[in-house]
């Protein structure tokens, strides 16, 4: 399969200066769901943030479907390799604001919200009963995580990068969300990279990437 995303080399140290990872390259094939795992504190979130360009990483090359993105075109890269961040952050405002704000940004390039897709995603994740006028601050943790995933899928980037998108969800909701992620990733010109902990979901992924354990540093 042709590579959809090639990016690297990434390296990072933690707050105490210990090397978390060094020279890591991320490659993702078209139509694949890749799972990233590793012990806690191994820098999974940092790697994802560097990959999408939220955290600075010097000397990194980023390529999407053969197109190279310079550091100056990071906004365009982020719009196509989009992070669903850990803890599902929400803008102050309504559920509707949170679902739609990205389409008002320049990076949307005139794309509009696919209303039928939105309705389909909301009902698949069990959020159909939540009106868009509701204040996002009143959502429960589980609702917030599902809404963040819906927001990412609705945006329809080339690659969805998700950091523990199903944390705090019960089994049924997590399965529904995972099915959506798989469907998303398995389409042509698309892909997904997720940090997941559930063993069944990991087995269902197309690729498994592992971080940590062997990173240089001072482990005895």
């Amino acid at each position: 399969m042709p590579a959809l995303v090639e990016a690297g080399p990434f390296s990072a140290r933690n707050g105490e200066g210990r090397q978390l990872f060094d020279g890591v390259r991320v490659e993702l094939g078209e139509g694949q769901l890749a799972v990233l795992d590793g012990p806690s504190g191994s820098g999974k979130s940092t790697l994802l943030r560097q990959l999408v360009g939220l955290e600075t990483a010097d000397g990194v090359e980023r390529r999407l479907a053969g197109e190279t993105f310079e550091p100056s075109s990071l906004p365009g890269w982020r719009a196509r390799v989009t992070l669903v961040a850990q803890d599902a952050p929400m803008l102050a405002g309504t559920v509707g604001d949170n679902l739609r704000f990205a389409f008002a940004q320049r990076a949307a390039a005139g794309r509009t919200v696919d209303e039928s897709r939105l309705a389909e995603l909301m009902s698949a994740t069990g959020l159909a009963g939540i009106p868009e006028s509701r204040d996002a601050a009143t959502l429960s943790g589980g609702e917030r995580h599902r809404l963040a995933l819906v927001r990412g899928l609705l945006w329809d980037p080339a690659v969805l990068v998700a950091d523990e998108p199903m944390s705090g969800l019960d089994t049924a909701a997590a399965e529904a969300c995972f099915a959506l992620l798989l469907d998303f990733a398995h389409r042509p010109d698309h892909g997904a990279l997720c940090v997941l902990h559930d063993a069944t979901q990991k087995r269902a992924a197309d690729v498994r990437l592992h971080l940590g354990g062997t990173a240089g540093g001072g482990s005895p």
Partner: protein
Amino acid sequence: MSDLIQLGPLQLAVATLLVIAAGVVSLALRLGVERRLAVAAVRTVVQLGLIGVILERVFALREPLLVLGILLLMTMFAAREAAQRSSRGYRGIVVDAWLAMAASCFVVGGVVTQAVVGVEPWYDPQYVIPLLGMILGNSLTGIALGLDRFLEHLAVRHHEVELRIAFGASRREALAAPLRDAVRTGMVPIINAMSAAGIVSLPGMMTGQILAGAPPLQAVAYQIVVMFMIAAAVAGGAMLVVLLAGRRFMGADATLRLDRLRSS
């Protein structure tokens, strides 16, 4: 003005009795502030005496370069003060505060002294220094509040800023919400002052002009000009300082550099 009652050493000596009375209250109630009160009273006399002497000299010399130098010095002190009032900081905060302060105050001050009041000659210190001093003193509050709020927004609500960035926001789009938040906050005091003017309090400058013998309507006219110029200086200054600060935390690639934020 002819009906101005002159104050001499005798009058000031009598007024000293008042501050001594305040000291007696402190002693009687054992507030323990009499020493600080005495020091503050001495500082008031010395500092105001000095500025009085300096202003007399400047007014007498009527030297444009000297006036400009004093104005520049005033903006620098104001900028340092504005930066210090912010509970968070970053490298270059004083420079940014100074640039914003100087730009907005010189533009607004220029419009007021040259176009509205029509000062002759253009640098007449009797008008230019007090007017600019008032713009500075008030826009300092606005700029400090705006800056503080902007940095707080970045520190506390960075998840929201990064959420926009994650979906491809440009720098301008990513910083729009913190900018609006900051400028709105910076403008609150002057809006409150304009709303309460004349009802809750008589503004200090107007009171001073009336004491100096100006007809009340003239004093009111000056006060209105001052209020409006402060509003313009605060809006411009707060917006500028936040734009400058924003560039320190975000390059053209719109990556949020929170590591550059310091809490002080």
